[in-house]
């Protein structure tokens, strides 16, 4: 029996700096056979162990079919993530995972896809966008909606520009507070929803971001005609084990780590509006 609680040694093969605080670690298990066996779905996460410091849950952002390496895009904000940001190629860390359920990518095939992210950029959503981009012919229209508070909060602006030039792809970005050169919308991101070029009744929506934002977004999407059962969202809670034991990630009866982090909207819609649950 494999012990899900014990990490496995992995090596940083490449470190990509995405912004001042965001970086991507491209990893490989040291044990070749483990690496070969390793399978995941976008939306799933690993527990990353920084030697002597601790573990944090981080989504896998690379493509599941990319066998050579797997990637984590991480924002350095606290103890562990700041420490992780100092890792360099050749450095080692521990990995447990993958854990949780990923995005419903098979169900979404043949349908329009609307991806809504909020806040400071959202790794789980990036993994879906990458996934769809690489299999463009399998999906219908793709709409990417990103909202930020301040224009400066937007990272990866070039990516949004690049994506917006792709066929059958619509990118809508909004900032509550803009700047002089801000090329996109200023105002609540939800004001843009009506412009989405999708067939609402045939759309699968995937959301990631602050809970309040996702709740409002869901209301707007429902107004567009997207059915609740086709809306998915990725939740975030404190996690210490990743396998539904430590209890930290509970929201109502759900363990975000194993019942999620990706949920169907219907599973959590009653819980989302309650503060402090």
């Amino acid at each position, binding site marked *: 029996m494999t012990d899900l609680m014990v990490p496995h040694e992995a090596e940083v093969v490449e470190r990509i700096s995405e912004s001042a605080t965001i970086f991507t670690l491209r990893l490989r298990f040291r044990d070749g056979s483990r690496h070969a066996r390793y399978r995941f779905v976008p939306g799933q996460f690993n527990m990353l162990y*920084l*030697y*002597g*410091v601790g573990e944090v849950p981080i989504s896998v952002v690379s493509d599941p079919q990319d066998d050579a390496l797997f990637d984590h895009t991480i924002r350095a904000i606290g*103890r*562990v993530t*700041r*420490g992780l940001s*100092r890792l360099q190629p050749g450095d080692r860390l521990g990995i447990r995972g993958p854990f949780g359920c990923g995005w419903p990518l098979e169900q979404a095939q043949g349908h329009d896809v609307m991806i809504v992210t909020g806040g400071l950029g959202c790794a789980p959503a990036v993994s879906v966008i990458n996934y769809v981009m690489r299999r463009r012919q399998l999906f219908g229209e793709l709409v990417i909606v990103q909202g930020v508070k301040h224009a400066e909060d937007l990272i990866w602006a070039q990516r949004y520009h690049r994506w917006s030039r792709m066929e059958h792809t619509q990118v809508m970005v909004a900032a509550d507070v803009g700047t002089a050169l801000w090329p996109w919308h200023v105002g609540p991101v939800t004001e843009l929803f009506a412009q989405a070029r999708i067939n609402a009744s045939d759309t699968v929506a995937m959301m990631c971001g602050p809970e309040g934002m996702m709740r409002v977004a869901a209301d707007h999407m429902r107004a567009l005609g997207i059915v609740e059962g086709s809306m998915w969202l990725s939740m975030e809670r404190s996690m210490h084990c990743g396998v539904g034991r430590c209890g930290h990630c509970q929201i109502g009866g759900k363990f975000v780590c194993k019942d999620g982090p990706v949920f169907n909207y219907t599973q959590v819609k009653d819980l989302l509006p309650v503060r402090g649950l």
Partner: protein
Amino acid sequence: MGEPAVMAKKPRVAVHKFSSCDGCQLAFLNLGEDLLRLSSMVELVHFAEAGPVDPDAEVDIAFVEGSISTAAAIERIRSVRSRSRFLVAMGACATAGGLQALRNLADGAAWVADIYAVPAELDLLASSTALAQHVRVDLELWGCPVSGRRVVAAVRALLFGVSPVEEQDKVCLDCKRSQTVCVMVTRGLPCMGPVTRTGCGALCPRFGRDCYSCYGPAENSNVEALGRRLEGVGLSRTAAGRRFLSINSAAPPFTEAGRRRAQDHE
């Protein structure tokens, strides 16, 4: 809490002392073999009690013991701050003004007049205050005295280049983890564990007595509910107030909870 910058391979460390009993510095001197190990991992540039004296040295990490209670001390802590990349306030004196902060509560006229009668060079201030009231503090290690385990853990974390963990849960948690029998529930002792920060490993209950909060307030401490309970187990209102006005009397939730009870008495 401050973030440690990447530390030098062998960081320079200073241990400074302000108004205190020296007990927190002993966390280093009592490390035994680990003291020698530590001294090979860091460069101890100022630590008067252990030998090296260079109070003005630029350092990566400064551990500061003691409270600020003279005008000269204010100057000195500012100077220490400006020369230290990561400053750790170590112990109840440095984090909350210490036991000697009880004088902050004394009614102005009496004590302060006495204090001003001392030789001018003493420049004793009317209050004894925590470092954070004067300078930015990157990490607070509470406790009277601070625990050696936590000092070592802080050094270790900084050597790894990450910020040390802050412990702020309540003593009760550690009390139960050590399977200690609650002295409040079984004996009606006026235990401060439910509002006191962990770090000691629930020492007092393990020794069959009530915690007297030498580690200061935990996060989200319901001092009012505990105050009522202390009276419920038989303390007079002033005696319950004194439980808060002790080693960490100047820590905000305690000052209020204690003072209210002291005043009611008058």
